[in-house]
């Protein structure tokens, strides 16, 4: 066979055996789609990040000041200046990062701290926002961001009535869950029939406060100086 | 009565599982064996045993005398056939047996002088049976005599006895196990033979043991037959024969269960008693061996029980083989009005039939007639998986699974659960609270497995 002879069939064959050439459609589509996705991301990215921040920020005034004062503040068209920070806590050689929001009044005075934490609940992870006063002496509020507790039972932890118990509790003592009729200052009433869900929330709070009390105090002082 | 009185027997006197159906043996237990008068005609099917049919050696219109050979078994698993009466061959026709098989049969009409009544009884069961004569026979002589006499297992399966008792070089037999359990409810024929002719059984047992070169002879009897046990013990004194007293339980008389109960041995799955060095036969067969060898008389008569509440006067009868069921029942006063089912054999494993012209064969141990009250007629309901069938299965199978596999034709599942190990004792169907016909379904499944192997 003369090698110089190239019949059209063989030529076609060679084309078909070339993977890159075969995939021209895939490649060009990938390019087009990639560019359009980049455009979408460029257009929507900031909005999404804003959404994420707002979700937490919106809650901050209420968590720190209680709903009445927060509403009044909103009515007066005043807002906190919120700075997201990450605080590293080293315990037993493991470094853990807490996401903390520092809230300052418009005059620069420290309004308090809000920290976003999660932990194991009865059914799944529970995600909380905990509000702390500037001196980290008491809890100013609690908000449940995400939970999958038993509907009708454990998920009553999201109710304002139950969450309200936490406002004003001292950070000095560990909180304790009792079945009902909390008398002592550091006691929290359990949600009826859902002791575990209640316990879980309190455990997360206790752990967070233990971890964060000192670092936050330091952080607050540093800013002042 | 204490189980297993011979201390040196290794078995526990019982097997695991099994059932306790009401035995109803009191209906005929105390009726002494009566001899049925010579019938006008006997019908002798050419196949009365497991195996190959015999070949007729007579022609129609030919004269025959009682005990004359009328058929020969040429094949290995086949037997000779003899006329029980004196008369003329009418024809070689066809007859149907309770198990549903249509077979060629020799019809003989009674003519001339007959041996009957007490004389016949004395000839078959009575008289003196020497206990020391076995030593004078060679094993092969005994085996040959048994073959000549056309003896088959009289317990029901009708396996040719000469095949069992022939000396075998490949399998050493050290024990002859004789089955006197009679675990089927209602039947009392073996009991009566044990009671009335223990001598014949002992003599036959010694001969049988000689034929297979067995050193040990054990007769297993259930403990609900104390009188028979006493008679056998007395008769066996001075011989090597031991009487094993076993727990009354169905199916104690099944060969594998009996070997387990008396000897503590387990016959391997799919194996035979000879695999554990045991030859097994029934007490009635022993009496027939004794008659065949010592008196050189063929197997022409046997003892059957005609019983059940559907029969007016339940009796134990000495009948010529070939007697019609009708004649046997008529001799016992006929059927009552509420008779609902006529069974060849006992109610657990026997075959129901409706045509009373069928003959009594060598394997017929009795005729049981049940009334409407005895027969279960509830409709089948769903299996609730209570596991009672598992609790009673003497083969330790899972009957409900087997039945389900059979019903759905799932042969691999049936095989996984060892369907072929089932010997159709019927315990599972007996206890099933949902009235599922378990053993009937399993029987069907076994047939499918056999068909699929071909």
């Amino acid at each position, binding site marked *: 066979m003369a090698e110089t002879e190239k019949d059209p069939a063989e030529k076609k064959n060679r084309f078909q055996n070339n993977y890159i050439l*075969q*995939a021209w*459609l*895939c490649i060009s*589509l*990938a390019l087009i*789609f990639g560019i*359009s*996705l980049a455009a*979408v*991301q460029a257009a*929507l990215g900031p*909005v*999404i990040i804003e*959404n*994420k921040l707002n*979700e937490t920020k919106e809650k901050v005034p209420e968590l720190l000041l209680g709903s009445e004062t927060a509403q009044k503040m909103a009515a007066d068209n005043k807002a906190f200046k919120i700075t997201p920070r990450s605080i590293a806590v080293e315990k037993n050689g493991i470094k853990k990062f807490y996401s903390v929001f520092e809230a300052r009044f418009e005059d620069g005075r420290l309004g308090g701290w809000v920290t976003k934490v999660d932990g194991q609940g009865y059914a799944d992870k529970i995600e909380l926002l905990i509000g702390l006063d500037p001196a980290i002496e008491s809890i100013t509020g609690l908000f449940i961001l*995400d939970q999958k507790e*038993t*509907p*009708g*039972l454990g998920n009553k932890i999201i109710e304002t009535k139950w969450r309200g118990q936490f406002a004003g509790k001292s950070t000095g003592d560990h909180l304790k869950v009792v079945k009902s009729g909390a008398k002592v200052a550091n006691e929290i009433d359990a949600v009826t029939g859902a002791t575990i869900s209640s316990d879980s929330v309190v455990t997360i709070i206790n752990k967070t406060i233990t971890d964060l009390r000192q670092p936050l105090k330091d952080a607050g002082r540093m800013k002042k100086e | 009565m204490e189980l297993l009185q011979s201390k040196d027997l290794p078995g526990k006197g019982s097997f695991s599982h099994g059932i306790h159906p009401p035995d109803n043996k009191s209906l005929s237990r105390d009726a002494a064996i009566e001899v049925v008068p010579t019938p006008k005609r006997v019908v002798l099917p050419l196949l009365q045993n497991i195996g190959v049919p015999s070949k007729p050696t007579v022609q129609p219109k030919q004269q025959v005398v009682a005990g004359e050979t009328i058929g020969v078994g040429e094949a290995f698993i086949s037997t000779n056939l003899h006329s029980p009466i004196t008369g003329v061959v009418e024809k070689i026709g066809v007859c149907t047996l309770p198990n549903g098989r249509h077979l060629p049969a020799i019809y003989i009409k009674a003519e001339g002088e007959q041996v009957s009544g007490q004389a016949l009884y004395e000839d078959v069961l009575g008289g003196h049976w020497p206990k020391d004569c076995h030593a004078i026979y060679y094993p092969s002589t005994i085996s040959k005599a048994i073959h000549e006499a056309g003896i088959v297992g009289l317990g029901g399966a009708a396996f040719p006895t000469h095949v069992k008792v022939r000396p075998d070089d490949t399998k050493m037999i050290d024990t002859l196990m004789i089955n006197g359990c009679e675990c089927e409810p209602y039947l009392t024929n073996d009991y009566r033979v044990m009671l009335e002719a223990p001598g014949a059984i002992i003599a036959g047992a010694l001969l049988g043991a000689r034929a297979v070169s067995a050193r040990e002879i054990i007769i297993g009897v259930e403990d609900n037959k104390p009188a028979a046990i006493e008679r056998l013990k007395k008769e066996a004194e001075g011989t090597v024969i031991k009487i094993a007293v076993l727990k009354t339980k169905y199916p104690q008389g099944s060969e594998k269960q009996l070997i387990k109960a008396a000897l503590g041995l387990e016959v391997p799955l799919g194996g035979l008693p000879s695999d554990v060095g045991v030859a097994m036969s029934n007490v009635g067969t022993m009496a027939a061996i004794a008659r065949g060898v010592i008196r050189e008389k063929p197997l022409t008569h046997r003892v059957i029980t005609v019983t059940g509440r559907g029969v007016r006067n339940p009796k134990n009868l000495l009948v010529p083989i070939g007697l019609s069921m009708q004649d046997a029942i008529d001799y016992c006063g006929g059927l009552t009005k509420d008779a609902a089912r006529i069974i060849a054999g006992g109610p657990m494993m026997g075959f129901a039939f409706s045509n009373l012209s069928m003959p009594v064969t060598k394997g017929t141990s009795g005729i049981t007639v049940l009334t409407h009250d005895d027969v279960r007629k509830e409709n089948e309901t769903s299996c609730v998986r209570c596991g009672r069938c598992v609790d009673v299965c003497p083969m330790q199978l899972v009957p409900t699974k087997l039945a389900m596999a059979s019903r759905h034709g799932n042969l691999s599942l049936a095989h996984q659960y060892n369907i072929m190990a089932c010997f159709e004792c019927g315990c599972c169907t007996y206890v099933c609270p949902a009235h599922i016909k378990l053993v009937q379904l399993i029987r069907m499944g076994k047939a499918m497995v056999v068909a699929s192997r071909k």
Partner: protein
Amino acid sequence: MADQPTPLERFIRGILPENPVYRQLLGLCPTLAVTNSMKAAITMAAAVAFVLVCANTVTSLIRNLLKPHLRIVVFTLTIATFVTIADRLLAAYMYQMSKTLGPYIPLIIVNCLIICRCEVCASKQPVFTAISDAAGQSLGYGLALASVAGVREILGTGMFFGFRVLPATWPDWAVMVLPPGAFITLGLLLGAVNWYSGRGAK
């Protein structure tokens, strides 16, 4: 291929005779996962509809360029792109809903309904037919999701679209908004639809 269904027929078929959930048993994962409230179900259905219509359109446009052994890659590429767009849009404009739906929006990529329509219809039919097919299937899918979600939301919370429709004394059947409720509801509805169509067939 003599009597190809008209585009209108294709549209109608998607609603019940070839309903993706009830007749084809496609896309069951979101049907079970996001149907505990009407809002979530409708949003999900809308997202699927968006992806399905877009993917069908694109596939139909390039159907003559497809090579048989590479078509699945192209389908996946197309679907993934539109799913990502849908996901971003939701995150930007319906942030709470996007959180509720969680991973189920990205999981539309592996929703067999879409790849099935691309394969069965869009890769062989002109654009208009493909779009009407996608629309019909989307509508059928939406109806199926809504039916499951409706039952679950009403029984489980006494509400419909977040509005209370049953008296406040209604004991919420929590199990209905939990995963087992999804299986039970879908099972019973499937049974009912099959029973109904089976009766029609007789």
